[in-house]
């Protein structure tokens, strides 16, 4: 056992993961890359070779050479509407393939259908976020090998650095041609950006495009070129449009969430970053969307013209672009119909890969250019460490997403969250799991006001200068923690086992925390 930089006890060896000695988290920017990038197997396809086009998933699996024990990757641009993960694993099971390592960018509720494949041994290990029922299974010790959680930037870093080698990448393509060129812009399953799949297309030994909208060669525009793609399969349908993109996302009418958003917006307005060229990421949750709406109001009022909006893109960001309040959108994931329509028609709306978005080990991730990001968390502690992975009962129920990456990159990282969710406090003495270290978090905003990390004296001063209607209600962290305790009452201590069921990697590949097995009596239904 050894303590890492956020004082978490990490065993020197973790069964199913390996030695941790040289992989202990040392600080948000401590570890630098060494050596060379990884590579994929050389392949070629000449004019006399057979067509890439195959009739079924079963044929593609056979053609790819996929065998037991290999690593297969998936991407979540179809979100909760994705049919591909379940379909591929069903076929793997039928073909007698076992002990697979599943390397998805994220799994959703729709993927609970793979639980029988986990139990039967078709899937032996998951490296990726585990939400909902799969998270519950993992938390209770339902997998022999621990899950490895990486951020959106940490994942492509792991691939490029050679920490993970992908044998076969299965890429869902809302539009593709027989040459394997892919796009997410059109088709009945249109999803906009294919950002999460780019790095896998480049670094996998075999790439299979699965589409329900096969077009003549070549399609235009192309997101992922067919030069990386080994096989193209036409399937009946790759996803459910209702689960892929939402309708118009709307700002919450919940007064408390609006109040939190209003506080966050005042903090941004008081900060030195609220000026022409401002770049920001807000995501699609209720509070962040409301912050976007309030920012729009403030930008108009103070005649501020922003630079770019980043990350998961919604109709709200598209409106800012159309109204000239932002100059560009950088889109790794398109959340709603407006975003899909915009990325398909407006050249200022740029599709970017997860590597470009957030990888700490390239020469210019977009997150490094961010001024402001609004994030959530299940818990924040007295050192401003944030937990986004585990719930109060210890269950591993959420992925990291871009939390670590944007927090590390942005000049102002704000966690906006109600002080209590139901009876569960969000401010605690020590978080159950450290996902993002306090050194990357600048402020916590709750309904009770704005709490600034004391290391950001400049922000505290800037807020102090905001007066009248723009005044920022500041509240110290210890006062907030005290209030949370008073409101929630004492919490029962959590009983957990020694066995490690999940490893949380910091975006540079070091271990920031581990998640241990919980017992069923802890789990809230």
């Amino acid at each position: 056992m050894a303590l890492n930089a956020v004082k978490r006890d990490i065993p020197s060896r973790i069964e199913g993961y390996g030695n941790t000695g040289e992989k202990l988290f040392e600080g948000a920017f401590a570890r630098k890359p060494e050596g060379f990038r990884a590579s994929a197997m050389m392949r070629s396809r000449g004019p006399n070779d057979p067509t890439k086009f195959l009739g079924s998933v079963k044929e593609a699996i056979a053609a790819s050479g996929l065998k037991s024990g290999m690593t297969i990757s998936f991407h979540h641009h179809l979100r909760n509407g994705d049919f591909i993960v379940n379909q591929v694993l069903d076929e793997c099971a039928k073909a007698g393939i076992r002990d697979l390592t599943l390397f998805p960018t994220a799994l959703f509720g729709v993927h609970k259908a793979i639980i029988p494949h986990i139990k039967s041994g078709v899937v032996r290990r998951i490296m990726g976020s585990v939400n909902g029922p799969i998270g519950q299974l993992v938390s209770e010790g339902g997998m022999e090998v621990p899950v490895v959680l990486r951020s959106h930037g940490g994942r492509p870093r792991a691939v490029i650095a050679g920490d993970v080698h992908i044998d076969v990448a299965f890429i869902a393509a809302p539009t593709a041609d027989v040459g394997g060129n892919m796009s997410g812009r059109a088709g009945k399953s249109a999803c906009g950006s294919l950002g999460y799949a780019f790095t896998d297309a480049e670094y996998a030994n075999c790439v299979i495009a699965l589409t329900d909208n096969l077009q003549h060669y070549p399609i235009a525009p192309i997101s992922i070129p067919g030069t990386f793609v080994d096989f193209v399969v036409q399937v009946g349908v790759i996803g459910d449009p209702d689960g892929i993109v939402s309708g118009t996302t709307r700002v919450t009418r919940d007064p408390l969430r609006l109040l939190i958003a209003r506080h966050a917006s005042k903090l941004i307005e008081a900060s030195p970053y609220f000026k022409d060229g401002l770049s920001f990421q807000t995501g699609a949750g209720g509070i962040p969307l409301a912050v976007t709406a309030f920012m729009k109001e403030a930008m108009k009022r103070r005649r501020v013209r922003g630079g770019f909006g980043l990350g998961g893109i919604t109709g709200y960001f598209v409106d800012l672009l159309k109204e000239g309040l932002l100059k560009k959108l950088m889109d790794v994931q398109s959340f709603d119909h407006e975003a899909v329509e915009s990325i398909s028609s407006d050249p200022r709306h740029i599709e970017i890969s997860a590597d470009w978005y957030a990888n700490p080990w390239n020469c210019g991730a977009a997150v490094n250019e961010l001024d402001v990001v609004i994030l959530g968390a299940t818990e924040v502690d007295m050192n401003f460490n944030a937990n986004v992975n585990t719930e109060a009962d210890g269950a591993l129920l959420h992925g990291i997403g871009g939390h670590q990456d944007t927090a590390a990159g942005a000049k102002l990282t704000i966690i906006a969250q109600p002080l209590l969710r139901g009876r569960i406090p969000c401010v605690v003495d020590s978080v159950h799991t450290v996902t993002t270290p306090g050194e990357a978090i600048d402020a916590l905003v709750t309904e009770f006001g704005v709490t600034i990390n004391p290391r950001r004296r400049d922000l505290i001063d800037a807020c102090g200068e905001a007066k009248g209607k723009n005044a920022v209600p500041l509240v110290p962290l210890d006062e907030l923690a005290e209030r949370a305790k008073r409101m929630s009452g004492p919490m029962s201590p959590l009983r957990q086992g020694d066995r490690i069921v999940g490893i949380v990697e910091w975006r540079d590949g070091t271990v920031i925390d581990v998640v241990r097995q919980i017992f069923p009596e802890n789990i809230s239904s």
Partner: protein
Amino acid sequence: MRRTMLYLPGNNPNMLLRGHLFGSDGLIFDLEDAVSRSEKDSSRILVREVLRHSGFDGREVTVRINGLDTEYWRDDLAAVVPCRIHGIRVPKVDTPQTIRDLDDALSALESRASVPIGATKVFCLLETALGVWNAYDIATASPRVTAIIPGGEDLAADLRTSRSKEGTELEWIRRMMIVAARAAGVDALDTVFPSVTDEEGLRREALFTKQLGFDGKSVIHPAQIPIIHEIYDPTEAEVEKARKIVAAAREAAARGLGAVSVDGRMVDLPVVRRAEFTLERAGAMTEGGAR
């Protein structure tokens, strides 16, 4: 100041604990219409506990009890009066006798709980034609009465009409309420604007009632608060003008002059009083007078 008093459902701990964060001048913990019969007991306990254990950032805290024609009102009072709240909002007050009965009950409870007699103020909801007709008598039935408030839906029903967007049915009643309140020396507070999404309608109604002379308005959604404050708060130009008037009046008094002139216009006593009221509203009065 009672520009806004926010209703908070007595069965919603989330809102009871956080309602003060929205910036209204006052809070109304509602045990009446917001609470179904099956939840009356639990809500009463919840409200009592919140009152005992929470702070409300100096807001005026009141509780709307169930009417004196119900079986609940005595239990409601017994639960909340010992918590030293600022006032009770009492529904469906028809006659001065209702207030006298309430006064007796409050005094008995205050005495038992070592709360100074008379400390608990009374806000009267006049929700029937009879109540409106008796407005002045009700407002003067006890020194506890601090405000009268016209009803909305119930009053419209009693008048055998319905609520309209324009508020035609309440127009005369609002005018009468102002006269009764001022004659009795109590505040006139307006009823709620029920459509929470109609900001323009709320703005129109608040402008109208402010012009009539109302001191404020009850609100049912936090989003309504800043709109009403904006209307009720004096503008910077109004504050500036008021400062000049008050300063000129003080200077004239000090020099023993009767007449005051501001920007070339003579100003008489009522105008000075109004200017002082404007500064009070804006929080701009200081011990020594205008800043």
